[in-house]
Protein backbone atom coordinates (compact mmCIF):
# COMPACT_ATOMS: atom_id res chain seq x y z
CA UNK A 1 0.00 0.00 0.00
CA UNK A 2 2.70 2.46 1.11
CA UNK A 3 4.99 1.50 -1.78
CA UNK A 4 2.19 2.24 -4.23
CA UNK A 5 1.51 5.62 -2.70
CA UNK A 6 5.19 6.58 -2.74
CA UNK A 7 5.43 5.51 -6.34
CA UNK A 8 2.50 7.75 -7.29
CA UNK A 9 3.97 10.59 -5.26
CA UNK A 10 7.30 10.26 -7.06
CA UNK A 11 5.44 10.45 -10.33
CA UNK A 12 3.75 13.66 -9.20
CA UNK A 13 7.05 15.21 -8.23
CA UNK A 14 8.72 14.33 -11.49
CA UNK A 15 6.06 16.07 -13.56
CA UNK A 16 7.15 19.61 -12.63
CA UNK A 17 10.76 18.60 -13.20
CA UNK A 18 9.83 17.61 -16.73
CA UNK A 19 8.01 20.92 -17.16
CA UNK A 20 11.01 22.83 -15.90
CA UNK A 21 13.28 20.96 -18.26
CA UNK A 22 11.01 22.01 -21.10
CA UNK A 23 10.99 25.67 -20.16
CA UNK A 24 14.77 25.77 -19.78
CA UNK A 25 15.52 25.15 -23.45
CA UNK A 26 16.72 28.02 -25.59
CA UNK A 27 17.12 28.07 -29.34
CA UNK A 28 20.73 27.58 -30.42
CA UNK A 29 22.42 30.78 -31.63
CA UNK A 30 22.68 30.95 -35.42
CA UNK A 31 26.13 30.10 -36.69
CA UNK A 32 28.15 32.95 -38.20
CA UNK A 33 31.05 32.17 -40.51
CA UNK A 34 34.36 33.51 -39.22
CA UNK A 35 36.42 35.54 -41.70
CA UNK A 36 38.90 37.16 -39.33
CA UNK A 37 37.79 40.63 -40.41
CA UNK A 38 36.34 42.24 -37.26
CA UNK A 39 34.04 44.56 -39.21
CA UNK A 40 32.66 41.81 -41.48
CA UNK A 41 32.35 39.33 -38.62
CA UNK A 42 30.85 41.92 -36.30
CA UNK A 43 28.25 42.92 -38.86
CA UNK A 44 27.42 39.25 -39.47
CA UNK A 45 26.86 38.77 -35.74
CA UNK A 46 24.86 41.97 -35.59
CA UNK A 47 22.57 40.74 -38.37
CA UNK A 48 21.55 37.66 -36.39
CA UNK A 49 21.91 39.04 -32.86
CA UNK A 50 18.84 39.07 -30.62
CA UNK A 51 17.49 42.55 -29.96
CA UNK A 52 19.04 42.58 -26.50
CA UNK A 53 22.55 42.20 -27.96
CA UNK A 54 22.34 44.67 -30.83
CA UNK A 55 24.00 47.56 -29.02
CA UNK A 56 26.83 45.25 -27.93
CA UNK A 57 27.61 44.36 -31.55
CA UNK A 58 27.19 47.94 -32.68
CA UNK A 59 29.81 48.99 -30.13
CA UNK A 60 32.22 46.31 -31.28
CA UNK A 61 31.76 47.02 -34.98
CA UNK A 62 32.07 50.77 -34.39
CA UNK A 63 35.45 50.40 -32.68
CA UNK A 64 36.75 48.10 -35.40
CA UNK A 65 35.42 50.38 -38.15
CA UNK A 66 36.95 53.48 -36.56
CA UNK A 67 40.37 51.79 -36.46
CA UNK A 68 39.98 50.88 -40.13
CA UNK A 69 39.05 54.43 -41.10
CA UNK A 70 35.47 53.39 -41.96
CA UNK A 71 34.13 56.52 -40.35
CA UNK A 72 30.60 56.48 -41.79
CA UNK A 73 30.12 52.93 -40.59
CA UNK A 74 31.43 53.79 -37.13
CA UNK A 75 29.16 56.83 -36.96
CA UNK A 76 26.05 54.89 -37.93
CA UNK A 77 26.73 52.18 -35.36
CA UNK A 78 27.53 54.60 -32.57
CA UNK A 79 24.50 56.76 -33.31
CA UNK A 80 22.23 53.73 -33.06
CA UNK A 81 23.89 52.54 -29.88
CA UNK A 82 23.90 55.95 -28.19
CA UNK A 83 20.26 56.52 -29.10
CA UNK A 84 19.34 53.17 -27.56
CA UNK A 85 21.26 54.01 -24.39
CA UNK A 86 19.82 57.53 -24.12
CA UNK A 87 16.27 56.28 -24.65
CA UNK A 88 16.44 54.42 -21.34
CA UNK A 89 16.02 57.59 -19.35
CA UNK A 90 12.39 58.15 -18.56
CA UNK A 91 11.25 55.08 -20.49
CA UNK A 92 9.71 51.93 -19.13
CA UNK A 93 11.96 49.19 -20.41
CA UNK A 94 9.97 46.04 -19.75
CA UNK A 95 12.79 43.72 -20.80
CA UNK A 96 15.20 45.43 -18.40
CA UNK A 97 12.59 45.20 -15.65
CA UNK A 98 12.14 41.47 -16.27
CA UNK A 99 15.89 40.90 -15.95
CA UNK A 100 15.57 41.83 -12.29
CA UNK A 101 13.15 38.95 -11.61
CA UNK A 102 14.23 36.01 -9.52
CA UNK A 103 14.12 33.48 -12.33
CA UNK A 104 15.45 35.67 -15.14
CA UNK A 105 19.03 36.40 -16.11
CA UNK A 106 20.55 39.84 -15.88
CA UNK A 107 21.81 39.24 -19.40
CA UNK A 108 18.19 39.16 -20.59
CA UNK A 109 18.13 42.95 -20.44
CA UNK A 110 18.94 44.90 -23.60
CA UNK A 111 22.67 45.61 -23.44
CA UNK A 112 23.73 49.23 -23.29
CA UNK A 113 26.93 48.60 -21.36
CA UNK A 114 28.34 49.54 -18.02
CA UNK A 115 29.07 53.26 -17.61
CA UNK A 116 32.70 52.89 -18.77
CA UNK A 117 31.47 51.28 -21.99
CA UNK A 118 28.87 53.99 -22.56
CA UNK A 119 31.51 56.64 -21.92
CA UNK A 120 33.71 55.06 -24.57
CA UNK A 121 30.85 55.11 -27.08
CA UNK A 122 30.43 58.83 -26.40
CA UNK A 123 34.18 59.36 -26.66
CA UNK A 124 34.51 57.58 -30.00
CA UNK A 125 31.51 59.44 -31.42
CA UNK A 126 32.92 62.76 -30.21
CA UNK A 127 36.13 62.11 -32.17
CA UNK A 128 34.02 61.64 -35.27
CA UNK A 129 32.04 64.82 -34.62
CA UNK A 130 35.28 66.75 -34.27
CA UNK A 131 36.55 65.18 -37.47
CA UNK A 132 33.39 66.43 -39.23
CA UNK A 133 34.08 70.00 -38.16
CA UNK A 134 31.60 69.98 -35.27
CA UNK A 135 33.80 70.46 -32.20
CA UNK A 136 30.89 71.70 -30.09
CA UNK A 137 29.00 68.48 -30.71
CA UNK A 138 32.19 66.65 -29.78
CA UNK A 139 32.30 68.70 -26.59
CA UNK A 140 28.69 67.74 -25.91
CA UNK A 141 29.69 64.09 -25.85
CA UNK A 142 32.80 64.72 -23.74
CA UNK A 143 30.43 66.21 -21.18
CA UNK A 144 27.98 63.37 -21.61
CA UNK A 145 30.79 60.92 -20.89
CA UNK A 146 31.79 62.76 -17.75
CA UNK A 147 28.15 62.80 -16.64
CA UNK A 148 27.83 59.05 -17.17
CA UNK A 149 30.76 58.58 -14.80
CA UNK A 150 29.42 60.98 -12.19
CA UNK A 151 27.34 58.58 -10.08
CA UNK A 152 30.12 56.43 -8.68
CA UNK A 153 29.71 55.03 -5.20
CA UNK A 154 32.90 56.73 -4.04
CA UNK A 155 32.70 60.34 -5.21
CA UNK A 156 36.51 60.50 -5.40
CA UNK A 157 36.13 58.73 -8.72
CA UNK A 158 33.10 60.61 -10.01
CA UNK A 159 33.58 62.20 -13.42
CA UNK A 160 37.34 61.70 -13.26
CA UNK A 161 38.25 61.08 -16.90
CA UNK A 162 41.27 63.27 -17.55
CA UNK A 163 40.83 63.59 -21.30
CA UNK A 164 37.10 64.26 -21.25
CA UNK A 165 37.59 67.35 -19.09
CA UNK A 166 40.73 68.37 -20.96
CA UNK A 167 39.07 68.14 -24.38
CA UNK A 168 35.91 69.85 -23.13
CA UNK A 169 38.05 72.80 -22.13
CA UNK A 170 40.13 72.70 -25.31
CA UNK A 171 37.03 72.94 -27.49
CA UNK A 172 35.73 75.79 -25.35
CA UNK A 173 39.05 77.59 -25.69
CA UNK A 174 39.09 77.08 -29.44
CA UNK A 175 35.54 78.40 -29.72
CA UNK A 176 36.51 81.54 -27.85
CA UNK A 177 35.26 80.43 -24.47
CA UNK A 178 37.02 79.78 -21.20
CA UNK A 179 38.32 76.27 -20.74
CA UNK A 180 40.31 77.04 -17.60
CA UNK A 181 38.01 75.18 -15.20
CA UNK A 182 38.03 72.07 -17.35
CA UNK A 183 41.82 72.20 -17.65
CA UNK A 184 42.15 72.54 -13.89
CA UNK A 185 39.87 69.54 -13.29
CA UNK A 186 41.75 67.48 -15.88
CA UNK A 187 45.09 68.26 -14.27
CA UNK A 188 43.83 67.55 -10.75
CA UNK A 189 42.44 64.20 -11.84
CA UNK A 190 45.68 63.37 -13.64
CA UNK A 191 47.69 64.09 -10.49
CA UNK A 192 45.27 62.13 -8.33
CA UNK A 193 45.54 59.12 -10.63
CA UNK A 194 49.32 59.43 -10.94
CA UNK A 195 49.19 60.13 -14.68
CA UNK A 196 50.96 62.59 -16.92
CA UNK A 197 49.59 66.11 -16.55
CA UNK A 198 48.16 67.37 -19.84
CA UNK A 199 49.76 70.52 -21.29
CA UNK A 200 48.25 74.01 -21.43
CA UNK A 201 45.86 74.68 -24.30
CA UNK A 202 47.01 75.94 -27.65
CA UNK A 203 43.82 77.38 -29.19
CA UNK A 204 45.64 77.70 -32.52
CA UNK A 205 46.30 73.96 -32.72
CA UNK A 206 44.72 72.61 -35.87
CA UNK A 207 45.61 68.90 -35.74
CA UNK A 208 44.02 66.74 -33.05
CA UNK A 209 45.73 63.41 -32.55
CA UNK A 210 43.94 60.64 -30.65
CA UNK A 211 45.90 57.49 -29.86
CA UNK A 212 44.77 54.33 -28.05
CA UNK A 213 46.77 51.32 -26.94
CA UNK A 214 46.61 48.24 -24.71
CA UNK A 215 43.76 45.76 -24.41
CA UNK A 216 40.81 46.98 -22.37
CA UNK A 217 39.01 45.25 -19.50
CA UNK A 218 36.98 42.07 -19.76
CA UNK A 219 34.29 40.93 -17.36
CA UNK A 220 34.13 37.83 -15.22
CA UNK A 221 31.95 36.75 -12.36
CA UNK A 222 32.75 36.20 -8.72
CA UNK A 223 30.79 35.05 -5.69
CA UNK A 224 29.42 31.62 -4.97
CA UNK A 225 26.83 31.86 -7.72
CA UNK A 226 28.63 34.22 -10.10
CA UNK A 227 26.54 37.12 -8.84
CA UNK A 228 29.44 39.56 -8.57
CA UNK A 229 30.57 41.48 -11.63
CA UNK A 230 34.35 41.76 -11.77
CA UNK A 231 36.84 43.05 -14.28
CA UNK A 232 40.13 41.74 -15.55
CA UNK A 233 42.60 43.63 -17.69
CA UNK A 234 45.51 41.78 -19.25
CA UNK A 235 48.90 43.39 -18.67
CA UNK A 236 49.46 45.75 -21.57
CA UNK A 237 52.71 45.39 -23.46
CA UNK A 238 52.43 49.04 -24.45
CA UNK A 239 52.77 51.66 -21.76
CA UNK A 240 53.16 54.83 -23.79
CA UNK A 241 53.52 56.23 -27.29
CA UNK A 242 55.12 59.09 -29.15
CA UNK A 243 54.80 60.64 -32.56
CA UNK A 244 57.28 62.35 -34.80
CA UNK A 245 55.81 64.94 -37.14
CA UNK A 246 57.99 67.08 -39.38
CA UNK A 247 61.06 66.42 -37.26
CA UNK A 248 59.37 67.14 -33.93
CA UNK A 249 58.66 64.47 -31.31
CA UNK A 250 55.50 64.68 -29.23
CA UNK A 251 54.89 62.41 -26.24
CA UNK A 252 51.61 60.51 -26.01
CA UNK A 253 51.39 59.27 -22.41
CA UNK A 254 48.32 57.42 -21.16
CA UNK A 255 46.04 60.15 -19.85
CA UNK A 256 43.13 57.79 -19.22
CA UNK A 257 42.97 54.13 -18.26
CA UNK A 258 39.71 52.42 -19.18
CA UNK A 259 40.45 49.61 -16.75
CA UNK A 260 40.84 52.10 -13.90
CA UNK A 261 37.52 53.64 -14.83
CA UNK A 262 35.78 50.26 -14.97
CA UNK A 263 37.02 49.24 -11.54
CA UNK A 264 36.49 52.47 -9.61
CA UNK A 265 32.74 52.72 -10.13
CA UNK A 266 31.84 50.93 -6.92
CA UNK A 267 28.75 48.79 -6.52
CA UNK A 268 25.75 48.89 -8.79
CA UNK A 269 22.11 48.86 -7.75
CA UNK A 270 21.84 45.71 -9.82
CA UNK A 271 24.50 44.12 -7.60
CA UNK A 272 22.03 44.32 -4.70
CA UNK A 273 19.36 42.65 -6.84
CA UNK A 274 21.79 39.90 -7.79
CA UNK A 275 22.94 39.62 -4.18
CA UNK A 276 19.34 39.07 -3.08
CA UNK A 277 18.89 36.47 -5.76
CA UNK A 278 22.06 34.71 -4.58
CA UNK A 279 20.84 34.80 -0.98
CA UNK A 280 17.48 33.34 -2.06
CA UNK A 281 19.24 30.67 -4.08
CA UNK A 282 21.44 29.78 -1.12
CA UNK A 283 18.52 29.80 1.34
CA UNK A 284 16.25 27.64 -0.80
CA UNK A 285 19.11 25.23 -1.43
CA UNK A 286 19.76 24.94 2.30
CA UNK A 287 16.07 24.50 3.08
CA UNK A 288 15.94 21.82 0.40
CA UNK A 289 18.92 20.00 1.91
CA UNK A 290 17.48 20.15 5.42
CA UNK A 291 14.04 19.04 4.29
CA UNK A 292 15.36 16.14 2.25
CA UNK A 293 17.63 14.99 5.07
CA UNK A 294 14.65 15.28 7.41
CA UNK A 295 12.56 13.27 5.00
CA UNK A 296 15.14 10.49 4.93
CA UNK A 297 15.41 10.49 8.70
CA UNK A 298 11.63 10.32 9.04
CA UNK A 299 11.42 7.49 6.50
CA UNK A 300 14.04 5.53 8.46
CA UNK A 301 12.05 6.00 11.64
CA UNK A 302 9.16 3.90 10.31
CA UNK A 303 5.49 4.13 11.16
CA UNK A 304 2.50 5.80 9.44
CA UNK A 305 3.06 9.30 10.89
CA UNK A 306 6.74 9.21 10.06
CA UNK A 307 5.92 8.20 6.49
CA UNK A 308 3.54 11.14 6.17
CA UNK A 309 6.16 13.49 7.56
CA UNK A 310 8.74 12.03 5.19
CA UNK A 311 6.52 12.64 2.20
CA UNK A 312 5.76 16.20 3.27
CA UNK A 313 9.40 17.04 3.91
CA UNK A 314 10.45 15.45 0.64
CA UNK A 315 7.93 17.65 -1.19
CA UNK A 316 9.17 20.77 0.53
CA UNK A 317 12.79 19.76 -0.08
CA UNK A 318 12.27 19.05 -3.72
CA UNK A 319 10.46 22.31 -4.42
CA UNK A 320 13.08 24.25 -2.53
CA UNK A 321 15.74 22.59 -4.63
CA UNK A 322 13.80 23.39 -7.80
CA UNK A 323 13.39 27.02 -6.73
CA UNK A 324 17.10 27.22 -5.96
CA UNK A 325 18.05 25.73 -9.31
CA UNK A 326 15.71 28.08 -11.16
CA UNK A 327 17.07 31.22 -9.48
CA UNK A 328 19.56 33.03 -11.72
CA UNK A 329 21.81 35.44 -9.82
CA UNK A 330 24.60 35.39 -12.43
CA UNK A 331 25.96 38.80 -13.36
CA UNK A 332 25.74 39.93 -16.97
CA UNK A 333 29.16 39.28 -18.49
CA UNK A 334 28.49 40.64 -21.97
CA UNK A 335 31.29 43.10 -22.61
CA UNK A 336 32.53 45.48 -25.28
CA UNK A 337 35.57 43.31 -25.74
CA UNK A 338 37.63 45.31 -28.21
CA UNK A 339 38.14 48.43 -26.13
CA UNK A 340 41.64 49.77 -25.49
CA UNK A 341 43.12 50.21 -22.04
CA UNK A 342 44.85 53.56 -22.54
CA UNK A 343 43.96 56.77 -24.31
CA UNK A 344 46.23 59.63 -25.23
CA UNK A 345 45.93 62.87 -27.10
CA UNK A 346 48.05 65.65 -28.55
CA UNK A 347 47.08 68.91 -30.22
CA UNK A 348 49.52 70.04 -32.90
CA UNK A 349 49.81 73.23 -34.86
CA UNK A 350 50.83 72.41 -38.43
CA UNK A 351 50.99 74.51 -41.55
CA UNK A 352 48.89 73.60 -44.59
CA UNK A 353 50.47 70.80 -46.59
CA UNK A 354 51.50 67.20 -46.13
CA UNK A 355 53.39 66.13 -43.04
CA UNK A 356 55.06 62.72 -42.70
CA UNK A 357 54.34 61.21 -39.30
CA UNK A 358 55.74 58.20 -37.45
CA UNK A 359 53.89 56.81 -34.45
CA UNK A 360 55.83 54.59 -32.08
CA UNK A 361 54.54 52.51 -29.19
CA UNK A 362 56.76 52.03 -26.15
CA UNK A 363 56.92 49.15 -23.69
CA UNK A 364 57.35 49.37 -19.90
CA UNK A 365 61.10 49.99 -20.23
CA UNK A 366 60.54 52.80 -22.72
CA UNK A 367 61.83 50.75 -25.65
CA UNK A 368 60.09 51.07 -29.02
CA UNK A 369 58.06 48.05 -30.07
CA UNK A 370 59.13 48.16 -33.69
CA UNK A 371 56.45 45.81 -35.01
CA UNK A 372 53.74 48.28 -34.01
CA UNK A 373 55.26 51.43 -35.50
CA UNK A 374 52.89 53.22 -37.88
CA UNK A 375 53.89 55.68 -40.58
CA UNK A 376 51.34 57.90 -42.25
CA UNK A 377 50.83 61.36 -43.70
CA UNK A 378 48.89 64.14 -42.02
CA UNK A 379 47.35 66.42 -44.63
CA UNK A 380 46.42 69.91 -43.51
CA UNK A 381 44.27 71.57 -46.20
CA UNK A 382 44.92 75.11 -47.34
CA UNK A 383 42.58 77.80 -46.11
CA UNK A 384 39.30 78.05 -48.03
CA UNK A 385 39.08 81.60 -49.47
CA UNK A 386 35.28 81.45 -49.81
CA UNK A 387 33.30 84.05 -47.88
CA UNK A 388 32.28 82.68 -44.51
CA UNK A 389 34.28 79.47 -44.91
CA UNK A 390 35.76 78.04 -41.71
CA UNK A 391 38.74 75.77 -41.42
CA UNK A 392 37.88 72.60 -39.54
CA UNK A 393 40.55 70.91 -37.45
CA UNK A 394 42.29 67.85 -38.83
CA UNK A 395 41.50 64.91 -36.57
CA UNK A 396 43.74 61.83 -36.66
CA UNK A 397 42.83 58.62 -34.83
CA UNK A 398 45.47 55.90 -34.36
CA UNK A 399 45.16 52.59 -32.58
CA UNK A 400 47.53 49.88 -31.53
CA UNK A 401 44.53 47.54 -31.81
CA UNK A 402 44.02 48.17 -35.53
CA UNK A 403 43.39 44.90 -37.42
Amino acid at each position, binding site marked *: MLRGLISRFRLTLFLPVIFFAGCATVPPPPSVPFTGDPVVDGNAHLAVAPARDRVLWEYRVAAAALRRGLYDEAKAKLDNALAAAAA*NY*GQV*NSEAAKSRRMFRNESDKPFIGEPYERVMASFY*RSILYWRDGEP*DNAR*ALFRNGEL*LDSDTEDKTYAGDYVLLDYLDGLVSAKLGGDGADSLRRARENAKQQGRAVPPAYNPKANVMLFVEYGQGPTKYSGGEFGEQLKFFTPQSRIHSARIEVSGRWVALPPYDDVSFQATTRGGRLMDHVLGNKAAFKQATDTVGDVALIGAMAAADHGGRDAD*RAAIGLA*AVGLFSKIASAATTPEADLRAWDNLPQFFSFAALSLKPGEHAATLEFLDASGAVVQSLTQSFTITVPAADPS*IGAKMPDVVVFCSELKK
Partner: protein
Amino acid sequence: MKNSLQRIVILSTGVASMFLAGCASSGVQNPSGVPVTEMKADERGFVAGTGIESQDLVTVTDKMARSILGVREIANATSVPRIVLDPVVNDTRFPINKDLFNDRIRIELNKHSNGKVRFLARDRMKTLERERELKQQGAVTASSDPSVVEFKGADYFLTGKLGGMASRTSQGVSDYVLYSFQLIDARTSEIVWEDSAEIKKQGLEDAAYR
Protein backbone atom coordinates in the same frame (compact mmCIF):
# COMPACT_ATOMS: atom_id res chain seq x y z
CA MET B 1 -3.87 8.05 4.51
CA LYS B 2 -5.29 8.26 1.00
CA ASN B 3 -6.87 11.69 1.72
CA SER B 4 -3.60 12.99 3.15
CA LEU B 5 -1.71 11.83 0.11
CA GLN B 6 -4.26 13.43 -2.19
CA ARG B 7 -3.81 16.70 -0.31
CA ILE B 8 -0.03 16.41 -0.68
CA VAL B 9 -0.39 15.67 -4.39
CA ILE B 10 -2.71 18.67 -4.88
CA LEU B 11 -0.38 20.86 -2.83
CA SER B 12 2.63 19.68 -4.82
CA THR B 13 0.90 20.33 -8.12
CA GLY B 14 -0.18 23.78 -6.95
CA VAL B 15 3.32 24.73 -5.87
CA ALA B 16 4.73 23.40 -9.13
CA SER B 17 2.21 25.50 -11.04
CA MET B 18 3.25 28.59 -9.14
CA PHE B 19 6.90 27.99 -9.99
CA LEU B 20 6.00 27.35 -13.58
CA ALA B 21 4.11 30.62 -13.68
CA GLY B 22 7.22 32.40 -12.47
CA CYS B 23 9.41 30.60 -14.94
CA ALA B 24 7.18 31.03 -17.96
CA SER B 25 8.00 34.06 -20.04
CA SER B 26 5.16 36.41 -20.79
CA GLY B 27 6.00 36.25 -24.48
CA VAL B 28 7.70 38.66 -26.80
CA GLN B 29 6.10 42.07 -26.83
CA ASN B 30 5.15 43.44 -30.22
CA PRO B 31 6.63 40.44 -32.06
CA SER B 32 5.64 41.92 -35.42
CA GLY B 33 6.98 45.36 -34.57
CA VAL B 34 4.93 48.47 -34.05
CA PRO B 35 3.11 50.18 -36.91
CA VAL B 36 4.50 53.57 -37.91
CA THR B 37 2.92 56.25 -35.78
CA GLU B 38 2.70 59.65 -37.40
CA MET B 39 3.10 62.41 -34.88
CA LYS B 40 3.20 66.14 -34.93
CA ALA B 41 6.67 67.62 -34.70
CA ASP B 42 5.67 69.59 -31.62
CA GLU B 43 4.24 66.54 -29.89
CA ARG B 44 6.12 64.63 -27.21
CA GLY B 45 6.63 61.13 -28.61
CA PHE B 46 6.43 57.85 -26.76
CA VAL B 47 10.19 57.34 -27.05
CA ALA B 48 11.09 60.71 -25.61
CA GLY B 49 14.23 61.02 -23.51
CA THR B 50 15.80 63.90 -21.62
CA GLY B 51 17.64 65.23 -24.69
CA ILE B 52 16.83 67.96 -27.20
CA GLU B 53 13.92 66.75 -29.29
CA SER B 54 11.68 67.93 -32.10
CA GLN B 55 9.03 69.35 -29.78
CA ASP B 56 11.71 71.52 -28.16
CA LEU B 57 12.98 72.68 -31.54
CA VAL B 58 9.48 73.65 -32.70
CA THR B 59 8.57 75.38 -29.45
CA VAL B 60 11.80 77.35 -29.29
CA THR B 61 12.00 78.39 -32.96
CA ASP B 62 8.31 79.39 -33.06
CA LYS B 63 8.86 81.63 -30.06
CA MET B 64 12.03 83.18 -31.53
CA ALA B 65 10.52 83.84 -34.94
CA ARG B 66 7.50 85.59 -33.41
CA SER B 67 9.75 87.57 -31.12
CA ILE B 68 12.08 88.74 -33.93
CA LEU B 69 9.17 90.06 -35.99
CA GLY B 70 8.29 92.44 -33.18
CA VAL B 71 11.77 93.99 -33.02
CA ARG B 72 11.66 97.72 -33.83
CA GLU B 73 14.70 97.50 -36.11
CA ILE B 74 12.88 94.92 -38.22
CA ALA B 75 9.28 96.09 -38.01
CA ASN B 76 10.09 99.76 -38.74
CA ALA B 77 13.07 99.35 -41.07
CA THR B 78 13.03 101.70 -44.06
CA SER B 79 14.94 99.23 -46.21
CA VAL B 80 14.74 95.47 -45.99
CA PRO B 81 17.35 94.30 -43.45
CA ARG B 82 19.70 91.55 -44.63
CA ILE B 83 20.40 88.83 -42.09
CA VAL B 84 23.17 86.25 -42.03
CA LEU B 85 22.75 83.17 -39.91
CA ASP B 86 25.74 82.35 -37.76
CA PRO B 87 25.71 78.71 -36.62
CA VAL B 88 24.27 78.08 -33.19
CA VAL B 89 26.85 77.12 -30.57
CA ASN B 90 26.06 73.89 -28.77
CA ASP B 91 27.17 74.16 -25.15
CA THR B 92 25.09 71.24 -23.84
CA ARG B 93 25.85 67.56 -23.42
CA PHE B 94 23.66 66.61 -26.37
CA PRO B 95 25.08 66.46 -29.87
CA ILE B 96 22.54 68.07 -32.19
CA ASN B 97 22.08 69.11 -35.77
CA LYS B 98 22.61 72.79 -34.99
CA ASP B 99 21.51 74.03 -38.39
CA LEU B 100 17.96 72.92 -37.66
CA PHE B 101 17.43 75.78 -35.22
CA ASN B 102 18.57 78.51 -37.59
CA ASP B 103 16.88 76.83 -40.54
CA ARG B 104 13.52 76.71 -38.84
CA ILE B 105 13.72 80.29 -37.60
CA ARG B 106 14.64 81.41 -41.13
CA ILE B 107 11.76 79.42 -42.64
CA GLU B 108 9.25 80.78 -40.13
CA LEU B 109 10.44 84.35 -40.70
CA ASN B 110 10.36 83.99 -44.48
CA LYS B 111 6.86 82.53 -44.23
CA HIS B 112 5.37 85.11 -41.92
CA SER B 113 7.36 88.33 -42.37
CA ASN B 114 5.90 89.28 -45.78
CA GLY B 115 9.34 90.23 -47.06
CA LYS B 116 10.30 92.37 -44.07
CA VAL B 117 13.62 90.54 -43.80
CA ARG B 118 15.96 88.86 -46.26
CA PHE B 119 18.46 86.12 -45.43
CA LEU B 120 21.81 85.79 -47.16
CA ALA B 121 22.89 82.30 -48.24
CA ARG B 122 26.38 82.40 -46.80
CA ASP B 123 26.44 78.63 -46.52
CA ARG B 124 26.24 78.48 -50.33
CA MET B 125 29.03 80.96 -51.07
CA LYS B 126 31.33 78.41 -52.64
CA THR B 127 28.71 77.52 -55.24
CA LEU B 128 27.75 81.15 -55.79
CA GLU B 129 31.35 82.24 -56.23
CA ARG B 130 31.92 79.43 -58.71
CA GLU B 131 28.86 80.54 -60.67
CA ARG B 132 30.15 84.11 -60.73
CA GLU B 133 33.51 82.90 -61.99
CA LEU B 134 31.82 80.99 -64.80
CA LYS B 135 29.92 84.13 -65.73
CA GLN B 136 33.09 86.18 -65.65
CA GLN B 137 34.78 83.63 -67.91
CA GLY B 138 31.81 83.75 -70.29
CA ALA B 139 31.20 80.05 -69.80
CA VAL B 140 27.58 80.74 -68.88
CA THR B 141 25.26 83.66 -69.63
CA ALA B 142 24.88 86.60 -67.25
CA SER B 143 21.96 88.99 -66.87
CA SER B 144 24.19 91.68 -65.38
CA ASP B 145 27.87 92.57 -65.33
CA PRO B 146 29.49 89.65 -63.47
CA SER B 147 32.57 91.68 -62.55
CA VAL B 148 30.48 93.91 -60.31
CA VAL B 149 30.21 92.54 -56.79
CA GLU B 150 26.55 92.03 -56.01
CA PHE B 151 26.85 89.72 -53.06
CA LYS B 152 25.20 91.64 -50.28
CA GLY B 153 26.66 92.27 -46.88
CA ALA B 154 24.84 91.57 -43.66
CA ASP B 155 22.92 94.19 -41.69
CA TYR B 156 22.38 91.74 -38.86
CA PHE B 157 23.68 88.42 -37.66
CA LEU B 158 21.23 86.00 -36.14
CA THR B 159 22.89 83.54 -33.84
CA GLY B 160 22.19 81.47 -30.79
CA LYS B 161 23.59 79.32 -28.11
CA LEU B 162 22.31 76.21 -26.38
CA GLY B 163 23.59 76.07 -22.84
CA GLY B 164 23.07 73.06 -20.66
CA MET B 165 23.31 71.87 -17.10
CA ALA B 166 22.99 68.22 -16.17
CA SER B 167 23.12 66.16 -13.03
CA ARG B 168 23.07 62.43 -12.55
CA THR B 169 22.49 60.36 -9.48
CA SER B 170 21.81 56.70 -8.96
CA GLN B 171 18.16 57.60 -9.44
CA GLY B 172 18.36 59.10 -12.90
CA VAL B 173 19.35 62.17 -14.79
CA SER B 174 18.17 65.77 -14.89
CA ASP B 175 18.84 68.07 -17.84
CA TYR B 176 18.23 71.77 -18.16
CA VAL B 177 18.78 73.51 -21.50
CA LEU B 178 18.74 77.26 -22.05
CA TYR B 179 18.11 78.24 -25.67
CA SER B 180 19.19 81.83 -26.27
CA PHE B 181 19.17 83.71 -29.57
CA GLN B 182 20.50 87.14 -30.51
CA LEU B 183 20.20 89.55 -33.41
CA ILE B 184 23.45 91.52 -33.67
CA ASP B 185 23.90 94.71 -35.66
CA ALA B 186 26.78 93.94 -38.07
CA ARG B 187 27.85 97.60 -38.18
CA THR B 188 27.78 98.52 -34.52
CA SER B 189 27.98 95.09 -32.80
CA GLU B 190 24.91 96.10 -30.77
CA ILE B 191 22.64 93.28 -29.71
CA VAL B 192 19.32 94.65 -30.97
CA TRP B 193 17.26 91.69 -29.88
CA GLU B 194 17.61 88.72 -27.60
CA ASP B 195 15.23 86.09 -26.36
CA SER B 196 15.44 82.74 -24.70
CA ALA B 197 13.52 79.63 -23.82
CA GLU B 198 14.34 77.07 -21.17
CA ILE B 199 13.37 73.44 -20.84
CA LYS B 200 14.11 71.04 -18.02
CA LYS B 201 13.63 67.30 -18.21
CA GLN B 202 14.23 64.47 -15.80
CA GLY B 203 14.33 60.77 -16.42
CA LEU B 204 14.67 57.69 -14.30
CA GLU B 205 16.65 54.74 -15.56
CA ASP B 206 15.61 51.17 -14.87
CA ALA B 207 17.40 49.73 -11.84
CA ALA B 208 18.86 47.05 -14.11
CA TYR B 209 21.16 49.75 -15.52
CA ARG B 210 22.05 51.44 -12.25
